[in-house]
Every structure is written in structure tokens, then in C-alpha cells.
């Protein structure tokens, strides 16, 4: 090699072309915003043979909202999502997760698809996607398939994507009446940091303010983001009063299986998973009541 690093840069214009490029070369990598990939590349963690830049494929760069719900192009920049008024109104928790990514500069490039495909257990949008029942639309040599987002990541840095496959879009069902969501994370700083713990909650209330359904997901406390049905169970049927929020918090803490590392001890993460779950549930409840 003698230091001659020859890396191809490809700019497919269609999903078909991108799939062909990815199928032809197992060492090629999809480049969306590059805010994970290029950092890893520079650090020597990844040495791809080719960057397949998907930002010229219209399906990956668009946002559509209709009666069915949202179709979010996988490579759409966070900044574009943050400025989408209808998206913000319907999924405020998802948008607050998107807007926590990095900084203004990072959000100009970084995407939800990249956040998910990087498969970090601490990724900020994953929990918010899970509580909103997102489906991952995947294109590959064999055509399209769909995978529920909570099954998409299988280990740190690993997803269900097979050779030649790429994530095209995320599909979220339109929220029912009196439904809303929230996402909170803990970082020691105010930005430019990785979540020590993250928690997302979505709740649907009936006309009397009783919680009819709920989803709770916690991040950075296990190898992948966790859907916590026990925490949701603690909320359903309640008026989201202090006692039920506390039970949900306890369920989240119990479900957490964190490691202790330089970012926080296991005990700390377990405690904070509960605190953030309780607080996020209260915020989501407040939003749902106003709808």
C-alpha cells in the first residue's frame, strides 16, 4: 500500500444505482451527512474502499406528511427537520431529539438515517423513533423490506442491514388524537456531548385525560436502545399522576442494563434512566393534554 490510500467517491442519483454500488463492493460505505463516518475515518476506525454519497437521491432527502403519517428521507439533514413546522407540531419529541444532535454546524449535515445506521446505543433519535412506532424502509438487491425500528440495531455499531442494502426512509404512523411525545437526555455539558442516558415517551390520552396507550424507550443503558413495555404498562390506565409516573420510572430503572464507564457508573445510569423517563412522561402528557 505504501500509504497510497485510494478511496472512491460515488454519487448515485437513484436508489437502484446506490444498491448496485453497495452490492458490488462490501467495503463501500454509505455517506449521508458524514458526521459520524468521516470522524471515524479520520480516527482510523474505518477505512472504506468507497464513499457512496446518497444525498443526491431525492427519496432520501425528502419529507412528506399525509393522512397515513410521515415519510422521512433517511439522509435529510437535521436542520431541515428542525424547520419543518408540521413535523414539529405532530412529533415534538422526535424533533427535540433531532435538534439535540451536535451543534448548528453538525445539524446542517447530520441525518436521522445516519444516526440510526451508526447504531450507537446513545444515539439521540433512536428512542424517539421507537416510541413513535417508526418503521425502517430498506432497499436492497432483493427489493424493499420494512423492519420495526426497535429491531433495526442489533449491537453497538451493528444493524440488520445486509450486503447491498441501505436505509431509504423512516415511516411513522400519524399520531392519534391527544397523542404526543417527548425526549430527554442527560449530558454533563449543554451540547456537543454523548448521552449518558436518554429517555423517550409517547402517550395517548382519552377525552377524560386517561392514558390509553404509551410507549417508553431508554437509550445508552444497554447495547441497543430498549423499548420498555413495563414502564408503558405503569402509565396506561392512569391519569399520568405522580404515582404512576413514579412506577414508570422504577420500571425503566429496572429494565436498564447499563455498563459503568468513563461517562457514568452503572448505578448512576440506572437511576437517571428512571428520572428522565418520569420527566419525559410528564412533558409528553402535558403536550397531549393541549392537543
Amino acid at each position, binding site marked *: 500500500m*505504501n*500509504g497510497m490510500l485510494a478511496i472512491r467517491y460515488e454519487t448515485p442519483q437513484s436508489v437502484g444505482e446506490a444498491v448496485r454500488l453497495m452490492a458490488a463492493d462490501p467495503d463501500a460505505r454509505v455517506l449521508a451527512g458524514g458526521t459520524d463516518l468521516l470522524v471515524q475515518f479520520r480516527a482510523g476506525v474505518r477505512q472504506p474502499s468507497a464513499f457512496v454519497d446518497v444525498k443526491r437521491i431525492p427519496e432520501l432527502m425528502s419529507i412528506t406528511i399525509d393522512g397515513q403519517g410521515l415519510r422521512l428521507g433517511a439522509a435529510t439533514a437535521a436542520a431541515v427537520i428542525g424547520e419543518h413546522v408540521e413535523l414539529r407540531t405532530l412529533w415534538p419529541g422526535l424533533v427535540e431529539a433531532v435538534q439535540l444532535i451536535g451543534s448548528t454546524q453538525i445539524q446542517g449535515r447530520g441525518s436521522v438515517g445516519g444516526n440510526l445506521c451508526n447504531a450507537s446505543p446513545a444515539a439521540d433519535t433512536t428512542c424517539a423513533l421507537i416510541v413513535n412506532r417508526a418503521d425502517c424502509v430498506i432497499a436492497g438487491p432483493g427489493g424493499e423490506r420494512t423492519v420495526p425500528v426497535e429491531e433495526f440495531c442489533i449491537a453497538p455499531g451493528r444493524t440488520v442491514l445486509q450486503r447491498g442494502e441501505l436505509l431509504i426512509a423512516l415511516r411513522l404512523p400519524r399520531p392519534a388524537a391527544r397523542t404526543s411525545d417527548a425526549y430527554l437526555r442527560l449530558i454533563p*455539558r449543554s451540547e456537543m*456531548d454523548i448521552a449518558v442516558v436518554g429517555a423517550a415517551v409517547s402517550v395517548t390520552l382519552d377525552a377524560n385525560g386517561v392514558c390509553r396507550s404509551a410507549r417508553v424507550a431508554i437509550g445508552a443503558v444497554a447495547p441497543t436502545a430498549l423499548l420498555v413495555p413495563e414502564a408503558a404498562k405503569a402509565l396506561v390506565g392512569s391519569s399520568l399522576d405522580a404515582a404512576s409516573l413514579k412506577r414508570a420510572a422504577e420500571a425503566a430503572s429496572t429494565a436498564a442494563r447499563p455498563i459503568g464507564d*468513563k461517562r457514568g457508573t452503572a448505578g448512576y445510569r440506572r437511576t*437517571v434512566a428512571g428520572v428522565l423517563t418520569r420527566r419525559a412522561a410528564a412533558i409528553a402528557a402535558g403536550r397531549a393534554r393541549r392537543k
Partner: protein
Amino acid sequence: MTTPREFKYVGTRPIRHDGVDKVTGRASYGADVVWPGMLHGFVLRSPHAHARIVSIDTRAAEATPGVKAVLTGKDLPETTATIALGEAAIDLRDVGDNMLARTKVLYHGHAVAAVAATTIDIAREAAEKIQVVYEVLEPVTGIDRAIAADAPILHPALRTKGAASPGAAGPTNIASRLEFKRGDVDAAFAEADVVVEREFRTPMVHQGYIEPHACIARCGEDGRAVVWCTTQGPFVVRDACAAIAGLDPAHVKVIPSEIGGGFGGKIVVYLEPMAIALSRKAQRPVKMVMGRDEVFRATGPTSGSRVRVKLGAKRDGTLVAATASLWYEAGAYRGSPVGAGAMCALAAYKIPSFFIEAHDVVVNKPKVAAYRAPGSPIAAFAVESVVDEIARELKMDPIELRLKNANAEGDKAPYGPKYGPIGLKQILEAARNHPHWTSPLAANQGRGIAVGFWFNAGMNSSATVILDTDGSAAVVTGNPDIGGTRAAQAIMVAEELGIPVERVRPGVGDTDGSGYTDLTGGSRVCYATGMAVIRAAEDVRDQLKARAAQIWNVAVDAVGWENGRAIPPAGTEKAEAMTVAGLAAKMAHTGGPIVGRASLYAPMAGPAFGAHICDLEVDSETGQSKVVRYTVFQDVGRAVHPGYVEGQMQGGAAQGIGWALNEEYIYDADGVMENAGFLDYRMPVASDLPMIDTVIIEVPNPLHPYGVRGVGEVPIVPPLAAVANAMRDATGIRFTELPLSPPRVLEAIEAASAVSVGA
């Protein structure tokens, strides 16, 4: 004293001369230059924290196409030279060994070899082919282990220097032990009504300058070398390069680049002599640039520490006795700032009896370097926390307690000399009268105050002021501009010559283009080099007066000077006052160009104090805290450019807050740093901090013509304790270990509530 001078330019806030180039990216920093034929250097670093080097085989690297030179410690001569640096001295044998290990590696990341090749990728690949056989030894990663009876020894020849504790005669990791004492401490404690004793710990922290170390060097067959690098001290680099690379200092020229932060960390050489030695072998220029992880692992952070402090006071608040035991990590080679820490520890207070002992301890971590007021913040964290506890025990206002014991002009400093005019009482009074001190706190908030001290430095400085025929002037000194000193120097020349600041071009000379000047550090540039600048401008003015005398045909003594104009003696025929521009235009006909120069040694400086008030809000369920309000009070002597003085006060506070809240070197059991990047080495980002308010207090320093004291270091001293005292106020918990990171704070809150529930 004469009546205070009225200033025209001093105290104004002109836009800095180097500002536009910096914000547009045109300014050239260490890594920005490209020289023809240049090679790229890469450093192979130790994967072990402590090991003996058994052998190094570089053949495969040398045989790699594109590789032009390979260097190991054996290629460099062993030097015994030192560089004087105020109180301390730089031991260049240790610096050389630290730059490139000879027989032992003493920390993870210690350089063992370097390769220069046509591309950085080739250099890296070749370096990875170098076979190093290590005999791995147990690492010493902290003070407790270092001083244990069965501790592995870093340097077999090291013996404790100074007032050794009994029995410490053999091989040791304690490089030195100092004592400072006054009065009979035991008797004094016996008279105290309250006594508080605590032990504190702080981890190693880094200055965190944004620009990594970088240089380019060339060395010809004639043994003459030129180095371009990012440094605080071009003359230090010159002398260090000559000694370590084995050249005559007369043959080494160092050109300082713009500098992207230093804070004390860019004084010691880590790359430059290596780049010279590689260039000498390859006969081509060699550029070397560190990555961020190399900066963390292998440059000079400041010490981790263990400090025990005991204070005794009378019921009326009079401090009567103090003891302090300081243990600072030096890193791999001796020379922590523990001596300075010991001297600063009690500098604020009149305490009749005290005993301080200070230990310098070597450990298998990077060798520490200077960091803004080296040693003082660690000592102040301990002392100011205990003073806060005394105030609580006595139910006394913490400012009143400090005022009651504050040193003032004429008092004997704990470290020896008598204080001249100092502003400690003035800053404390300003803090007490400031609305911040009495503003109400919201729920979950606490308020803390702490003071801090730094000596400031004088030393060698030179300056040249060059007048142009259009009446503009250039001023050149040998100090790289870190804190806005060029703007201050331009203001000084403008003040002395009466020409607009914008018509003065302040510049930084290289080691051949400026008289010998000590480094940019010790808060000395505006003070000592500023004094040289003022004198050099006065020299220009004296020459201008002589030219006017010649034109008017009068005696020089008879020429006056007012508002930037030479004034003829009354009654001189056909003579009108002449401006600098008017006289400059006639230079060629009155004797030729005018250059003013001055060089001096300033033996002393103006010591200074600061007081900081911090409001902290704590989330008791997550342990997370946020600084919600922060005010810095500081005696600066005289603010030449108040905008940059405020910038220094804010910057020092921001660094100290980071040290208090989240920054720390995290090591695993093998002595490997786990967080060698800005993601997990958590310096504050802009959004973490509120606007830091500043209150400038000016108690002029009589040693300087304008009263300048030095500003840059004092403001990092108080924040550690100011934040911890605010945390105590908010949570009821006295934290004695930094950083106050969310996990640590939550654990303490939970432990405290478990106790109170159980009780």
C-alpha cells in the same frame, strides 16, 4: 508620588491589529506552513505506562520506500544543560528524555521513535514496522501508590531533595520536599476556638488549547537550523533545540507562528528538536503536527493532587493558625508546581503561625507543564474551601471573614517579602457591594465566593520601535501574542508618541529579529515587555526632540513635548510646534532613520488577587449542575486595553469552572488514559456558561510606569473553590474531590439523604 497621569489611549478598546486575519482564517499557525521538499514526521509512542526499553529495531521502517529518516533516543546527545525560568529551571536532559525516551518509557504515549517520510501515511506505516521490545513494569498511576513502601520506582537514581521526611534516604518517587513555616503552630492551634481540617483531591487536567503542537524545521549540512513553531517562548525553544539536538545556539533560529492558545503548555519542546534531528538526517525540511490524543497523552497537563489543610480561628473570625500538606503529581519527571502552590496557599491571609509542607511526586503519567498560575488553583481549592467552612462554623459572612484577615500593603507575605500596594481588600469590598452578592437565589441554587493569588513575573524583555517617514511606527518584541498583547503594545507606543493606535504596527519578532525576551507567560508581557516598549518609545521621542532641536537650532533640553508634538522654547524665531509626522518626514535630512530600543530585566512584578462569586443550580435527582451567574473581581493594576483584560478574566474563570465541574484525566489500571479527546475530556462549551461578569479594580503597581500588574493567571485560581463553595451552599455537602461531575454529585446527595432519612 506625582499626580496620576492622564491617558489618551491607555484604557481605550481599539480593534486588535491581528483580529481580522484571525477571524478570516488568514493568520498562520503552527501547522499552516508548507516548505518546498518538506517531509512529514510521525512519532511512535509507547503502548505501556511503565517499561524498560530492551531494544528497538528500525530496519524495516528504514527500508520502506518514501522513508527518509528514522530517529530514536540513541541518535541524540545527552545534555546536562538547563534553562533558567524565573524561580524554576528547565532541566533539558529530562526534556530530551521526555521528548524521546532513551532507556525507559514512563507513561503511555511516551515517544520512542520518529519517522520522516514523503507522506504522513508512509511515515505512520513505517513507524508501525519498528520493533520495540519492552520489559513491562507496574505503572504508578497516582500519589498514593507512588509513596507506598513497595511502590515501583520510576527513576532509580532519584533521591528526595530538600527538607526530607525522616527515613527517606533511598530510591524514592518523592522528588522533593519543601517546608514553609512561621511561628509556633501547635501553640497557636491550642488558642483557636474553631478548627477545621479537610483533605482534598484533584485529578490531572489539561490546558486544552485548541491548536495542537506543530512545527516545521530544516537543518542543513552546515548545522544551521531554522524552526517555525507554535510556542510561548521562541528563545526557550532555540536554546532547548540547540542543547537537545546538539547544535550551537548561534546556529538556530526560531520563528514563532501565531499561537492558538498555550496557557503555559507551549513552553517545553515536544517536537522541535526531533524535527531538526530528522531534517539533519534527511536533508529536507520536516513538518510535525500532533493529533489531539497525542496532545492529551504526551504534552504537559497540570498535576493531580492531594492536599490536607487545617485552619484555626478565634470566635471573632481572626485566623490564628494553619497547616497544609501538599502532594502534587509531577508526572514522569520531577518538577510539579507544588512549591508555587505552597507559597500561594495562604497568600491572602495574615496568619501568625503556619506550617506548610510540599511534596513533588513522580508518577507514570505525562510530565506536567505550566498551566496558568501553576500550582495556585489546587492550593486555593483546599484553603478557600476550608475558609468557607470556618465562616459557616462561625456563622460569619464569608466576605467579612476574608476582609478581617486580608493582607494589605506592608504585611509580610507568607512566602517572604513585604507586600507593596495590593488590591485584596478593595476587591473584597467591591464584591460585598456588588448587587450579585445580595441578589436572591432561586430554589436549588447556591452561592460561593473564593479568592486567589498569583505572583506575576518580570524577567528579561526587549523592544524596538521603528519610526517610518510617514510618522507611523512599528513595534517589535520577542513575545508571541496570546492574550492581546500586540494591541496593548500598540496602545503604549501610541500613548508615548501621540500617534493613533491604528498607525502603530505591533509585531512579534523571531529570535534573530528581536532582542532576548523571556517567554510569554507569568502574566509578564504587558508588564515587563510593556515597560520595554514604553522605554523604546521614549527613546524615539528623545531622538525626535533632538531632531527638533537641530531644526530650531536650540538646545535639546529646551525642547518640550506635549500631545505628540515637539514644542520650541518660548521666543524661538520662526519655530512652530512639530508633530511626529512632521519630524519623521524630515528624518533623512536630520540624521537618518529613527529606531528606539530598550531592554531590561524586571526583578519583581506586581502580585495580584482576584475574588469570584459563583451561583450554581443543582439538579438533585441527576447531580447535574449549571453555573447560572458568575462575577469576577480583580485588581489588574492598570487595564491598558480593558477589553482584553476582561477577556483574560473571563477565560481564566471559564477554565477554572471546567476544572471544577467536569475536566479530568481518567486512567485505567494499566495507566492508559481513557478520555484523550474533547468528547470525553469535558471542557466547557460556550453554551455551558452564563456571560461572566467582570469588575476591574485598578490599584496601580508602582513598579510600572502605567501601574500594570499582569492579568492572565489570577482568574483561574478562585473558580475551583468558588464553585465547590456554591455547591456546598446548594446541597449542604462539602465536596473535597474534583471534578463535581453529575455522577459524583448524585452519589453524595443520595448518601447524604440516606443518612438523614436513617437518622
